[in-house]
């Protein structure tokens, strides 16, 4: 287990350090194996600060597994990962608690199933993690929580329990909860898949705003419109591997890989 803290301007990178020096996230040859099955197979990915990357592909391709590897909800079987100054090498064993904590400090995650804490009000959902993790006072945490709830347009729901909110509202509260932790990388795992299309649109609206505020985002999605118009890069994943990556226009209109073409013609119906 090696945790090294690279200063951003260190020119003398150690041997084997990620190739792209300017990138904020650098995943190198990540593999996640479940038994015999490689859900993520030798994936390398670089994300620059402020970049929005959509990860698309057929279901079962390992998209969710990949972004869950980035905040260690799944611990990769091998490979290396750096986010900001936190680095973890999975070839040398299970990551230490401290390195998991360092890495997760950079990330926020939004789930398909929202995963709000049902026994807390919206406000407490957003304040409790701040108080426990960042040791913010109740007043500080609440002030911040109200800012974030306002940002997602739900300050009026602060006192409501999740069960008293619609799915779309719950997802926006979940986004506020993640944002209040000051993440520098937001991971979205199919955030609209559990919602009706018109409700999904309100989530996408919030995400679009986040992107325009320069948040670095990785989005697993089936929303081709979002992938095309909001992201800077689209990565296509099939059978555990990223088979093609590039600017959205190129991927959507002139994909090189035959399997990308197949996938797109299936989802876009053309």
């Amino acid at each position, binding site marked *: 287990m090696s945790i090294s803290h690279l200063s951003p301007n260190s020119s003398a990178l150690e041997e084997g350090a990620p190739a792209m020096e300017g990138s904020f996230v650098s995943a190198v040859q990540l593999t996640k194996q479940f038994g015999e099955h490689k859900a993520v197979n030798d994936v390398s990915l670089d994300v620059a600060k402020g970049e929005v990357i959509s990860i698309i592909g057929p279901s079962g391709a390992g998209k969710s597994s990949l972004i869950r590897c980035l*905040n260690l*909800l799944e611990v990769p079987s091998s490979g290396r990962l750096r986010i900001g100054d936190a680095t973890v090498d999975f070839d040398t064993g299970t990551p230490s608690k401290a390195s998991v*904590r360092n890495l*997760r*400090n950079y*990330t*926020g*995650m939004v*789930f398909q*199933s*929202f*995963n*709000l*804490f*049902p*026994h807390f009000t919206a406000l407490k959902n957003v304040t*409790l*993690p701040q108080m*426990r*993790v960042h040791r913010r006072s109740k007043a500080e945490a609440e002030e911040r929580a109200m800012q974030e709830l306002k940002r997602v347009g739900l300050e009026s729901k602060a006192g409501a*329990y*999740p*069960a*008293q909110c619609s799915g779309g509202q719950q997802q926006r509260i*979940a986004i506020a*909860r*993640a944002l209040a*932790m000051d993440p520098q990388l937001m991971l979205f795992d199919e955030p609209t898949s559990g919602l009706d299309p018109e409700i999904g649109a309100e989530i996408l609206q919030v995400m679009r705003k986040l992107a325009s505020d320069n948040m670095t985002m990785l989005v697993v999605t089936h929303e081709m419109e979002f992938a095309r118009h909001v992201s800077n890069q689209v990565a296509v994943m099939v059978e555990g591997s990223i088979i093609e990556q590039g600017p959205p226009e190129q991927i959507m209109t002139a994909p090189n890989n035959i399997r990308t073409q197949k996938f797109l013609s299936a989802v876009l119906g053309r």
Partner: protein
Amino acid sequence: MFEIFAYIARGAGWTIVMTFGSAAIGIVLGLPLLVLAESKFALIRGIYNSIVHVIRGVPTLVWLFISFFGVGQLGITLSPVTASLLTLSIIATAYMSEIYRGGMKAIPAGQWEAAGALNLDRWSTLRFVIGPQLFRAVSPSVATQIIGLLKDSALVSTIGVADLVFRAGIMTQYHAHGLYMFGIAGAVYLLLSLPIAVFSRTVHTRITRRYAVA
């Protein structure tokens, strides 16, 4: 007449001590047992499962006789009260930990994942996220279990603890009128179970009202 009633009703003292004493011990000690039940090592889970199976598979009365008459043979003499409380507590612990285990299954994996993604440490996750949801999930079963313990506690009369049944038995020996004497005992049991049921219902509706409305 009233004196007979008062004599039997005083047995409620031991009945209450046995019931709530063993329930309290079971509710507390059942929690650390969860760690064994949910261990990632199959061997530890296996040991846990066997112990729970043995404890629950043998009738309470037999356990009571083993700890009172049987353990005495090994040179450790337990008083009826100690033997009773010990036996009921061990049984209560086994049942409570199984109730907790069931309750843990009712908590979606997403709750753990959300806590992990937010970087909550293990203690905060258990204390603020999982614990309260577990409490809600198990409270009806725990109340049912306590009422079960209340009724099982009648068995301690067989080894000489002066509970409701024991005292009703003595009065029957003096005055006959078995129907009347044990009727009194039965009525006191009902009276004792009532607050448990009411308390459990109040707690449950209070915590579900908030977040079961969709």
